[in-house]
């Protein structure tokens, strides 16, 4: 008598096909458990995001020394290499930071990729009519895109100013001149500015979102969370964008 079959979803239904396979019984290491759970992954994204935010902030502060002149910048660069000497040999502290950053990037990107798959699977049949979003903004809906832009730019940025492969005038250790010569090429300046805008958009959502993911929520400071994100994005992005503009408009003088 029944032609239609009953679609009843139970946990573990293959129809659901989530990114993570079924959870093994029992408790394992809490980091492993974090990784298995979407909420945990978001927590890891927030923590790694905070580390990366710390990095972009200090990176920007360091770069501000461009306005003080070549000597100050290069001195600062040398300071970083000398950090914690003689507790640690030269450049070791810097490398430890770099490793931490690489790990943060890796966790951030891997979690994002895995959650993206999860979220796509959670709505395999999309809406057939046009959605009218109310709260979701441009920033929140383009996190994936801005993230990819930032990651690609990062590779170029490293090739340009750390490894020197993308900068014909590269001189290891001469931070000021490397920056000056790089930004003197207008296309690099434009790429740099666009990437920083992407970073600003990413931070506008991420700088707010991390509070939710970490569960930092209290009526006392909730209204400040959005302002923090806006403030942080501006504090990082505005000075960053000023560097190529200053080079092109010769506010930052030529390489001595």
């Amino acid at each position, binding site marked *: *008598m*029944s*032609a*239609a*079959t*009953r*679609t009843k979803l139970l946990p573990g239904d293959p129809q659901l096909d989530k990114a993570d396979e079924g959870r093994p019984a029992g408790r394992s290491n809490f980091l492993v458990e974090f990784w298995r759970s979407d909420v945990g992954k978001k927590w890891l994204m927030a923590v790694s995001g905070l580390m990366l935010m710390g990095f972009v902030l200090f990176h920007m502060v360091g770069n501000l020394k461009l306005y003080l002149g070549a000597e100050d910048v290069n001195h600062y660069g040398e300071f970083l290499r000398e950090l914690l000497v003689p507790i640690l040999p030269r450049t070791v502290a810097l490398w430890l930071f770099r490793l931490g950053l690489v790990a943060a990037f890796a966790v951030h990107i891997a979690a994002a990729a895995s959650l993206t798959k999860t979220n796509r699977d959670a709505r395999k049949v999309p809406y057939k009519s046009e959605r009218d979003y109310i709260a979701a903004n441009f920033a929140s809906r383009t996190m994936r895109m801005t993230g990819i832009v930032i990651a690609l730019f990062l590779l170029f940025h490293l090739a340009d100013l750390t490894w020197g492969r993308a900068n014909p005038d590269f001189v290891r250790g001469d931070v000021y001149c490397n920056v000056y010569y790089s930004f003197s090429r207008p296309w690099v300046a434009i790429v740099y500015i666009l990437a920083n805008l992407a970073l600003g958009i990413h931070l506008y959502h991420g700088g707010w979102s991390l509070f939710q993911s970490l569960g930092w929520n209290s009526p006392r400071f909730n209204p400040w969370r959005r302002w923090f994100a806006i403030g942080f994005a501006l504090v990082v992005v505005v000075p960053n964008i000023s560097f190529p503009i200053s080079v092109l408009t010769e506010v930052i003088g030529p390489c001595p």
Partner: protein
Amino acid sequence: MTLNSKVPSGPIEDKWETHKFEMKLVAPHNKRRFTIIVVGTGLAGAAAAASLGELGYNVEVFTYHDSPRRAHSIAAQGGINAAKNYKNDGDSVRRLFYDTVKGGDYRSREANVHRLAEVSVDIIDQCVAQGVPFAREYGGLLDNRSFGGAQVSRTFYARGQTGQQLLLGAYQALARQIAAGTCRLHNKSEMLDVVVKDGRAVGIVCRDLLTGEISRHTGHAVVLATGGYSNAFYLSTNAMYCNVTAAWRAHRRGALFANPCFTQIHPTCIPASDEFQSKLTLMSESLRNDGRIWVPKDPDDTRPPDQIPEADRDYYLERRYPAFGNLVPRDVASRAAKREVDNGHGVGPLENGVYLDFSNAISRLGRSAIEEKYGNLFEMYERITDENPYSVPMRIYPAPHYTMGGLWVDYNLMTTVPGLYAAGEANFSDHGANRLGASALMQGLADGYFVLPYTIGDYLAEHLGESLVPTNDPAFDDVESDVIGRVARLVGNKRGTRSPDHYHRRLGKILWDNCGMERSREGLGKALAEIPALHDEFRRDVRILGSDDGLNSSLEKAGRIDDFFQLASLMCRDALDREESCGGHFRVEHQTEDGEALRDDENFSYVAAWEWTGEGAEPALHKEPLVFENVELAQRSYK
């Protein structure tokens, strides 16, 4: 048939305690050998299923919703009564008992009501332990309010969503049992018949609403917690799916139907705005605590309400009932509104309402105080009517809301079919001819948490060692073929022209006009002629498109309406038979000089329990005499 109410002997305070001791018990290891079917997951059903599962029985739970949490108990707004006396205002079990018997206009069974009042205190404890977020005082203790004209504050509430929170509590308890494996949930399954073998209920037959599959389920006992039948009126405050089918099918299998004409019309609903109105929306009766009800004195007054001066307004409740004023019981308030509208004083575009005015309260207490108390109700009103009740008086009109009648049950909540129980609104037991506000939630949970878990055990203990009737038993075959035949007849009718709703509306109108707030011999006679005729037309002409092997809401509706037709005749029959006025049943022939209900205790102090005698045959009346040993019968007076 003699009706044995099985009320234990002894003083009323001791009856339940004595009975609990005298009932047989089922040992824990034997409980899992019993299967109990629970139909319906409202307050009574979910509470019963969860409690029985907790005890260790195998429980099969059925709901026609996708989730147990959607049962209509969820829509109750006002609160739940309990004789906690937290307010030190003189409340007690005895007072709650007394108020309920009096409020029911002396047509309920004393012993049941007393038990209800006794367990009311346990319900609150239970719900708080489950995490029901009742309103609190600043000190952290529970808050109470006075409700529905009660002279003590015994109503516990969770904003305007008490029913929702209590149901979620019961639903969550049920969910815990589902996870534990003691309860098995069958969602989107509509019970279409009861299987009776050798005079005992042994199972049910259901239709899966998504696939159309007809299935058989066997159990040692069957509990029907399937709600009331206000939707017989078409327009009521009940949810769209509420229906009488489960109870009616049980009735046709031998369960007597008690007091079908005892229906409650709730005074504060939003009037219908057009003929396509699908249902009416109730607004909590608590509004009457601060709102004043009036109509223009001049029937032809077309001025907007704020321009009608005090002198031209008739605050008719305050005028007629100086003591209780706007807080008279529901039946009295409803009839008074009907009288005003019938006399041409109705307000609003369709002249089908009366004003409920808050301007006094707003100027006395301030807008913010009113907003605090009723904000969500005002918002709801504005959403529906597009009028702002802070500046324009609300328009209200009574609407069918609750049915005190239902399957006849004894003190153990067992119907006249052994092994078949009815709980909550589906039974008739506790409210007599009129239910007090905030008592429905109390009764549903009392039945489910604290009565059925004991009384079912008493029945099952006698059937220890008996195995379940297999579902391939001829008893199941017969019932299933009946069900399949009925479904096939409805779907097979390809000559029909009108939708099921069309007939439901027409049935509702006949019932509302003749068996609503006021009933007369003449009107009821007319209805008794019209209903079967319309039923015939319905059977010939209802159009059900699509098939029976998948989701088909027209088919579901048509089956339910078919049963409403049969019930409607019985309601009128019962109303005609009861030559008195009491509670929600008002016969124009029986009223005092100033138009109040006139009871006839000498001749009608009984429960009218009707027996199904076959299609088209006159139902047989059985009487359970009501004996009042603890409450003195008196004319209700609210003057």
